[in-house]
């Protein structure tokens, strides 16, 4: 807005009405005629595509073309739009609507490229498809021959829906047919809570496709609640779609008078007047606040201690005692005493410490202070009165709905706080019943059959949980490195063990590290489809250092350095800049495709010819398969079109198929959108808490909610996992019950040089790093560092000023946005901006110039929201 401040204009309204120019007396009375109205859409055609970015709403996109060029994108507005009926328009947000800017961007990749200068120099030459396929195939073959399949890795990517994830794309099938590859565990989105939920509620709760818990209730289940407590659950920003969670949330709250309390360092768009209170909490201190909630609850459950039956809430207390392992000393001692050979958890019996139970820890019985609201308040910044109010609301509500976003767990204490968040509803008897939730991210009740995922998943990897066999050999490499050690594994993967680095499915001895199995090789070959982890992994400078390592020759398993880096994408991203071979993929609207989302199933057909020489990534995989002599690879067709049609046919007629899905016949020119009517509100974890005979039926080793985890007790002991004491102190950040343990660069950290906390939130203006290079989106979603007016005043900063923002890892340059929508002492930037170096600073403003590559203690995940920074004028 370059013109006026409305507030000034309304005061100067008299001045406006006196402007007459010279029109009134001197104008010629001849009337200009109206031009005839022309058909605004004459000559236009359309074809459906789908936004495949990692927001996961995967909205339909109506791509409008004229004379063979895309002229704009429109949202889905076909059919009914009635939220109460469950059939609605699934309108894409502004990001999907700007697909045109991705298709025709100056960064668009148009031909295969091969690096000519040092890695990362951005010096490439154009090569033929044949040469690209030959060289990549050769590299795969020689890596297997020299170092084994364990040295192959598929990078994390999510910019092309199912196809890009290293769990079920065409690249997965290829490498599975060759004997497997390193399939890391933990997504950047949800690493910490994936582990936290498995330890607390059991492996059976983990989502089949994504790894996040689907024990959660649906968003619409909130309509049965009288009190919603959100730990940063922010659907209105995360899903701007007109069809999915954000819309469901807005509609559900519109029709309800429930009390809504929102806890987040930022006053997000999930508030905007919907909230009854916003608690602007210091990042990563939610654990302290929740411990205070535990305190208030336990004091009312056990007003005369745990040896007395007296209770202000006898029913809730009984429920908690029945389901929570580790609630009291009696509870834990009883469990330990009964453990016998053959029982799950027996191997950890000696490590179970009954005195280390939740009640005594919270009360400070044996050591430490009582975790009262007065104890928590100076840590989290929220007053003791407000904390008390939350506890009272939780205890007095009929159906409290506790939920969380994923930002809270993307921190160095992520697993700890999530284990607390999962415990809270169990403690309250507010789980598995109407109007409640298990503490996790709520979801849209499953509506589609998931049919499209099934043929593809089984075709790639028949061990993919839940599906019924397939036509590829099972993945053979069971050993699984944490995703956040992807780059570290290029430098020292060969020596990693379960005990030292959390590598799963490697043999280990409970007591003797000398017997631990090593991974055996560094990662030598990395291929990434629609992923940008150079930009999106922690500490870009460290990533660059590792990618710059050159071994003495290829195929050296124990020498640091990657032999071959293959990047398949549509844009010259920071990751593509660091590739050895770049492969140009088609965008979402230049190929056939078929993807099921929560809300719609879309048959995509190309709206235009592929730009340049780009080809669908699958067709490059076919070329690789041919080069590698895998004659059995392309069993469903050799083109993306044939593959899509076959998958769709199976999605209709296969064993888990849906016969109401339309065939592709008749839709070759336009594709189609098939709307899923969403289901009634759904309660998560009903059966686990309302099992037969009322017995606990979790899939944990004890069948109970393992707030106390015997296995973690072992991990935390001196016999257990290696501890990073520099980062996490004596405990290494591990504890059998969840505890608030300050870490490196937390609020408590004594590093005066970096006085401010930073959160790297998910901006509306990108889906991670997708859409970054769309100029219109950069205009309407400004990238800036949010600073509270109080702090800005102290620092002498005004909105729009260019700032240098530094952490111990590096410096970015971004403008300031002074805003009341962020807590004091906290700053925020939107993650996903593309890294761009100039004179040692990142002028692109990428969050990961600032983040640290130290993984979290339990999940070995990516703690992007644990950063301390300082600010100076640029």
């Amino acid at each position, binding site marked *: *807005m*370059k*013109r*006026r*401040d*409305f*507030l000034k204009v*309304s005061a100067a*309204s008299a001045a*406006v*009405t006196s*402007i007459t*120019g010279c*029109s009134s007396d001197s104008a010629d009375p001849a009337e*200009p005629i*109206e031009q005839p*109205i*022309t058909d*605004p859409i004459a000559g236009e055609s359309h074809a459906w595509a789908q936004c495949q970015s990692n927001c996961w709403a995967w909205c339909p996109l109506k791509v409008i073309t004229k004379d063979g060029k895309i002229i*704009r994108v*429109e*949202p889905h*507005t076909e059919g009914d739009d009635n939220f109460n009926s469950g059939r609605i328009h699934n309108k*894409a947000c*502004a990001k999907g*609507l*700007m697909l045109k800017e991705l298709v025709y961007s100056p960064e668009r990749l148009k031909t295969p490229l091969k690096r000519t200068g040092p890695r990362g120099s951005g010096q490439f030459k154009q090569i033929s498809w044949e040469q690209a396929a030959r060289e990549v195939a050769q590299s795969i073959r020689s890596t297997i021959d020299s170092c084994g399949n364990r040295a192959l890795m598929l990078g994390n990517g999510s910019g092309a829906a199912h196809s890009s994830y290293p769990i079920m794309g065409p690249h997965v099938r290829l490498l599975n047919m060759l004997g497997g590859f390193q399939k890391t565990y933990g997504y950047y989105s949800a690493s910490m809570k994936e582990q936290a939920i498995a330890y607390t509620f059991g492996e059976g709760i983990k989502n089949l496709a994504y790894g996040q818990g689907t024990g959660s209730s649906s968003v619409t289940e909130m309509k049965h609640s009288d009190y919603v407590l959100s730990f940063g659950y922010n659907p209105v*920003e995360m899903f*701007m779609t007109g069809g999915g969670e*954000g*819309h469901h949330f*807005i509609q559900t709250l*519109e029709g309800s008078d429930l009390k809504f309390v929102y806890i987040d360092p930022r*006053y997000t*768009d999930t*508030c*905007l*007047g*919907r909230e009854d209170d916003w608690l*602007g909490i210091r990042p990563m201190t939610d654990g302290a606040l929740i411990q205070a909630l535990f305190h208030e609850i336990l004091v009312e459950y056990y007003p005369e201690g745990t040896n007395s039956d007296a209770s202000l809430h006898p029913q809730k207390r009984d429920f908690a005692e029945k389901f929570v392992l580790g609630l009291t000393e009696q509870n834990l001692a009883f469990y330990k005493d009964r453990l016998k050979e053959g029982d799950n958890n027996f191997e950890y019996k000696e490590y179970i410490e009954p005195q280390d139970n939740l009640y005594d820890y919270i009360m400070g019985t044996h050591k430490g202070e009582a975790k009262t609201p007065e104890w928590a*308040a100076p840590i989290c*910044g*929220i007053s*003791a009165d407000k904390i008390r109010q939350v506890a009272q609301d939780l205890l007095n509500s009929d159906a409290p709905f506790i939920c969380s976003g994923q930002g809270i767990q993307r921190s160095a204490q992520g697993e700890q706080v999530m284990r607390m968040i999962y415990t809270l509803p169990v403690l309250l008897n507010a789980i598995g019943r109407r109007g409640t939730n298990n503490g996790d991210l709520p979801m849209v009740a499953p509506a589609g059959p998931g049919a499209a995922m099934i043929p593809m998943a089984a075709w790639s990897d028949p061990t993919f949980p839940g599906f019924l066999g397939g036509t590829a050999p099972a993945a053979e490499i069971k050993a699984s490195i944490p995703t956040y050690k992807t780059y570290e594994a290029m430098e020292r993967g060969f020596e990693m063990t379960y005990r030292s680095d959390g590598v799963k499915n490697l043999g280990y001895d409970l007591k003797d590290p000398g017997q631990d199995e090593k991974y055996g090789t560094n990662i030598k070959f990395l291929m990434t489809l629609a992923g940008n982890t150079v930009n999106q992994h922690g500490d870009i400078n460290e990533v660059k250092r590792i990618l710059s390592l050159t071994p003495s020759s290829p195929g050296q398993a124990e020498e640091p350095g990657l032999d071959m880096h293959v990047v398949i994408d549509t844009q010259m991203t920071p990751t593509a800049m660091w590739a050895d071979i770049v492969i140009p993929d088609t965008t979402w609207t230049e190929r056939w495709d078929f993807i099921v989302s929560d809300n719609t199933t879309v048959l995509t057909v190309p709206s235009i010819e592929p730009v340049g020489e780009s080809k669908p990534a699958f067709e490059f995989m076919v070329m690789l398969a041919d080069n590698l002599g895998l004659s059995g690879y392309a069993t469903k067709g050799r083109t993306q079109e044939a593959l899509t049609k076959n998958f769709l046919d199976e999605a209709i007629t296969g064993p888990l198929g849906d016969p109401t899905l339309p065939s592709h016949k008749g839709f070759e020119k336009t594709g189609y959108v098939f709307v899923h009517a969403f289901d009634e509100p759904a309660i998560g974890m009903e059966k686990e808490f309302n099992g037969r005979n009322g017995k606990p039926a979790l899939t944990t080793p004890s069948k109970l909610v393992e707030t106390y985890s015997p296995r973690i007790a072992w991990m935390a002991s001196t016999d257990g996992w290696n501890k990073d004491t520099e980062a996490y102190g004596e405990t290494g950040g591990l504890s059998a019950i969840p505890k608030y343990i300050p870490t490196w660069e937390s609020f408590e950290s004594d590093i005066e040089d970096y006085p401010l906390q930073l959160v790297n939130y998910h901006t509306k203006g990108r889906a991670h790093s997708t859409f970054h290079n769309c*100029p*219109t*989106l950069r205009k*309407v*979603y*400004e990238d*800036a560092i949010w600073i*509270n*007016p*109080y702090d800005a005043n102290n620092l002498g900063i005004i909105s*729009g000023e260019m700032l240098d923002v530094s952490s111990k890892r590096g410096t970015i340059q971004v403008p300031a*946005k002074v805003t*009341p*929508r962020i*807590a004091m*002492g906290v700053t925020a930037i939107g993650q996903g901006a593309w890294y761009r170096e100039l004179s040692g600073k990142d002028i692109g403003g990428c969050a990961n110039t600032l983040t640290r590559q130290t993984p979290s203690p339990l999940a070995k995940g990516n703690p992007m929201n644990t950063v301390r920074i300082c600010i100076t004028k640029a």
Partner: protein
Amino acid sequence: MTKKSENQAFAFYFDASRCNGCKGCQVACKDGRNLSMERNFRRVYEYGGGTFNHNADGTMEQTSFAYYTSVSCNHCEKPACITACPTGAMHKRDGGIVTIHDDICIGCASCAEACPYDAPQIDTSRGKMTKCDGCFERLAFGLQPLCVQSCSQRALDCGTVSDLQARYGGTPGVGHIAPLPAPGITQPNLLIRSSPCTRPTGDTNGSVLNPNEV
């Protein structure tokens, strides 16, 4: 004051309690009308404020409020732009939509100076004024304006005043919210539903937080 049931003037309706600030409206128009980067026929303003105090015990007393307002041209009853226009290019069509006779516009930008809603904007490549025209050609062919069509949360609508009143209640110009100017200036044909935190026009407890985005 026009009678509720008869007012056939073209108007927009905006629901501040639903708007999520997604900018779909702003972007669909920019894209569909091929606007240069500095022109935004429809703009989404972020207005907010808050109070902040540190306590000696390390706790913070913080309040915050914010909301979005999507506005294009309000096709006003007393358009300041028409009054200001020296050539007669700016005019009102039958039905109330205010638009520009492109051929006689001289690009003097008097309309832009006069309009309190920033609706007329100069196209520097041609030296002509341009603005929201209610997508009247699309309307003539039974299509919604691009902004209304793309609103992800069903917070935008358009039609005659009487239609909108029948659907949503309200009155044009009544209950307008900051950062919009007082509606008495130009009598905008804009009906607004407020949210629990919207502030009335003239509010001084907040400010426009996103000037670079509009």
